[in-house]
């Protein structure tokens, strides 16, 4: 049962080890042991790395639970129905492990995933062994002796047993994690497919989906692939004052900035989150990749050396290491090929993102005046539509048609221009551009249907729903009915 539950959350378990780090060697051990609860953190981090293979990690943690179970039975000599009591702590830990959810980004105890289990194992096995020792030394005098030993050991270890949540996380977390992993592997279609499986995606899923569209050259499909994200509900905490407020800066700033070619900012958030929430494989990988593309080779080597001293990320580090001083290999890498056009956005700028990476990325690209290549050009036009920045779109559209006098205007741009040019403030003159008749007819139908529904006694949600059936794949629908764009 535990196997089934754990392995059905394989991506989640994999993410747990990516958010953790164990480096073999004295320096890492000393640094970790100096932390509060250092020994637990060090040993917890050691075991968490086995979730790299979820089956292996699950087997280890289940073995620990079984050993705890039998230790409790041996200790108490329970033979009847009371044996069920002995399995309850393990069930509870399985549940809390799965309930950790979004807290995995925020827990400040390295190796947290395994710490409660290690504490349980220490308490149960320790109690059993201690009881046997006491028995041998003093003979048993009271029936309650094993229970007393158990309680004392539990009290000693209790501070390590903070539980963050007892409710399962929003299921979209798992979609986010699958998308995240697919992005790391440049499996763009998998990212898009995962996104399309979810009826109401989170803003982060929309961000990931658009990264995949961008890198697969399909950004024109941005509004055909549900661009209406919502904020995930904040996880319910056991401690009311400790409510978790999710921020993309912790969840995905490193991935988002990196994929949009903002290497310094990706590096910054990898560093900030490592400082605040402890070192992780994910952050180390981001810092190494940023350093390589920034040509900070000594720095990259430092991070890769850490990863080379892990159990499961050595191969990744070796692959990166080969690129380290070979510009040819770097330029041939999928990472570089994807990001290189975005590195030409503009010269250096001194700025702050206020802790809102998504907003910064959208504003940054939407506000760019010149595009050095087609990928960047497509990005800056679509981000101006994504943010509904009409002024920026007018400029970008004008530049686009001037730069491509002989090309057909992409349908998305036509959709947007037909609608936005009817606004008084717009400088776009409809007559000057060869719009497709299909687009103008469809837009006229949209306006007609919109006006018709506006006169009917229905709510705006219902109106949005009815129009979505026909125009849900258009920018017009997104523009008028997606008003819940909250940055977090």
């Amino acid at each position, binding site marked *: 049962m535990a196997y089934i539950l754990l392995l059905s959350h394989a991506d989640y378990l994999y993410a747990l080890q990516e958010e953790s780090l164990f480096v073999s060697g004295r320096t890492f051990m000393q640094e970790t042991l100096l932390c509060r609860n250092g020994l637990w953190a060090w040993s917890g981090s050691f075991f968490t790395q086995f979730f790299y293979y979820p089956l292996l990690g699950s087997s280890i943690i289940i073995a620990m639970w079984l050993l705890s179970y039998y230790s409790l039975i041996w200790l108490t000599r329970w033979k009847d129905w009371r044996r069920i009591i002995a399995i309850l702590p393990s069930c509870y830990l399985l549940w809390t492990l799965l309930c950790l959810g979004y807290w995995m980004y925020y827990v400040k105890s390295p190796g947290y995933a395994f710490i409660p289990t290690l504490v349980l194992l220490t308490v149960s096995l320790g109690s059993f062994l201690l009881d046997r020792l006491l028995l041998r030394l003093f003979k048993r005098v009271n029936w309650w002796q094993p229970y007393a030993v158990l309680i004392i050991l539990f009290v000693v270890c209790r501070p390590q047993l903070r539980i963050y949540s007892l409710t399962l996380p929003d299921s979209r977390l798992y979609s986010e994690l699958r998308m995240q992993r697919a992005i790391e592997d440049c499996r763009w279609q998998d990212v898009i497919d995962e996104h399309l499986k979810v009826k109401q995606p989170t803003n982060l899923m929309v961000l990931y989906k658009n990264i995949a569209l961008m890198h697969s050259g399909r950004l024109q499909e941005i509004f055909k692939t549900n661009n209406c994200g919502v904020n995930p509900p904040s996880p319910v905490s056991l401690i009311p004052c400790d409510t978790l407020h999710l921020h993309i800066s912790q969840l995905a700033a490193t991935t988002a900035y990196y994929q949009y070619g903002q290497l310094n900012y990706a590096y910054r958030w990898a560093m*900030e989150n490592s400082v605040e929430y402890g070192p992780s494989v994910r952050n180390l990988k981001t810092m190494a990749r940023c350093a390589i593309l920034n040509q*900070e080779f000594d720095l990259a080597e430092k991070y890769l050396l*850490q990863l080379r001293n892990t159990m499961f990320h050595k191969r990744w580090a070796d692959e990166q290491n080969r690129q380290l001083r070979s510009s040819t290999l770097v330029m041939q890498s999928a990472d570089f090929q994807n990001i290189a056009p975005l590195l030409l956005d503009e010269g250096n700028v001194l*700025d702050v993102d206020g802790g809102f990476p998504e907003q910064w990325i959208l504003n940054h690209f939407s506000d760019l005046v010149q595009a050095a290549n087609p990928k960047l050009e497509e990005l800056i036009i679509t981000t101006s539509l994504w943010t509904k920045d009409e002024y920026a779109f007018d400029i970008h559209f004008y530049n686009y048609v001037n730069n491509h006098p002989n090309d057909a205007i992409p349908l998305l741009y036509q959709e947007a221009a037909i609608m936005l040019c009817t606004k008084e403030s717009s400088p776009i003159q409809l007559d000057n551009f060869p719009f497709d008749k299909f687009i103008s007819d469809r837009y006229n139908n949209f306006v007609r249907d919109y006006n018709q529904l506006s006169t009917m006694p229905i709510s705006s949600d219902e109106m949005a729903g009815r129009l979505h059936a026909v125009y849900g794949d258009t920018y017009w629908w997104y523009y008028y009915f997606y008003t819940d764009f909250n940055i977090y």
Partner: protein
Amino acid sequence: MRYLHFYILTIALTSILLSCGRPEVPESYIETQELPHIRPDYTEVTMPANICPPNFSVLQGTKNIVARLTAPGGLSYTYGDDAKVIIDEDEWAELRDAAKGNGIVVEVFVKADEEWVRFRPFNIYIAEEDIDPYISYRNIQPSYVAFEKLAIRQRNLTNFDESDIYNNMPLTTEKTGQCINCHSYQNYKTNRMLFHMRQGYGGTMIVDNGNIKKVDLKTDSTISAGVYPSWHPNINVIAFSTNSTGQSFHTKDVRKIEVQDTKSDLILYDPETDEVSIIENDSNELEVFPCWSADGNTLYYCSAHFEYHNDSITKEAEMIKRYKEVHYNLYAKSFDQKTRKFGKPELIFNADSLGKSATLPRISPDGRYLVFSMAEFGCFHVWHTDADIMLMDLQTKEVRNLEALNSSKSESYPSFSSNSRWIMTASRRDDGNYTRPYISYFNKNGQCHKAFELPQHDPNFYTFFLRSYNRPEFMVEPVTISPQDFVSVARGDAKKVTFKSIAH
């Protein structure tokens, strides 16, 4: 069978003894004129007469290495295990003492492709002079805004002992962190010292003749609490800057961060009366980094002239837009130790006229030299790759680059040892991001020798250590107050200081 245990024990002991044996220099080898690639780079450096062993790794792609260290007179020891040269402390002391005022010759042999290669020998010179036996620094990740685990630590330079002076972990919670910074001492001694705490349990910890107190240096008439300190060498007063500081981030520049003051002044704090007074507060000047001269009759500091022009945006926003225009010059003000009055500012180095910015001045205890950090602009040179340490001869006012101390990466926070013969700097030459203490011999003729990295017992330590050495300071004695004693005082309320007057 009855002797099995005996045999096993004998074999095990023999193995242990053999593994502890000293490596032998190969009988035959080929020679190369290349220097060996070692880390840290201790080739041709000059070290103090009381420094700990300079252990190093040999990065030649093989673990089979032997190093022979030979002092004048023929005293010689060999080392080498798993590509590391770990020198016994007692044997190093013998070698070092035998080579005082001279050099230890280091020969490195590497076995590659079944053949031993002897690299060109190099020297580790041993100066006649000692170095201060202790340094202290803050271990911090090179982060931007976030901070979590911070410790001000002290290190015995004659061996590898290191201990916490103060660690923020006891007073840090998941929600409320505690930043600690700017440890400072009077005259290299620790009976008068200070450091700041920000956020949780905020205040400045002042140790005065062994007594700890916590004060809040912010008054209604000053910009902030005290920031960058300098304890007067003779009397019990401390000069601080007060700063309104912000951070912003480069999108492409490898400098990555700009730390900027939108306004800053200088104040004088009297620990005996708990009064502060203004030293400098020109609204068009950004005064910072006070530093007393060795005789205490002059206060050196940096100041950048900056006038805000744009009322439509905040000062922070304007500073971000015009960040390259901020150039700090070096100034000096005379100080009367009896009346505690300051003279007028005197420009002693106009970095602005060179299109540069000069920061972090420090004076040699013999009063002859001033070292400072210089870069293209700004005040936070630890992030500026072009930042170098410069030397001013206070007799001639000649300024020159201390090339032997500098690298292509950032050098900042220079300081002199108490005998003026050693200069320490916080350098990022290893990898560009993590600051390490580098020390250079500064001879009586004002010449710097090649800098060496603070030795560690494990030569690979710096590779795996993901924290910086921030604000390295020399000390002639260790801090003896325990971290627990600091924590006890830190838990209490900070005493508010009173604003007295303008001190000039």
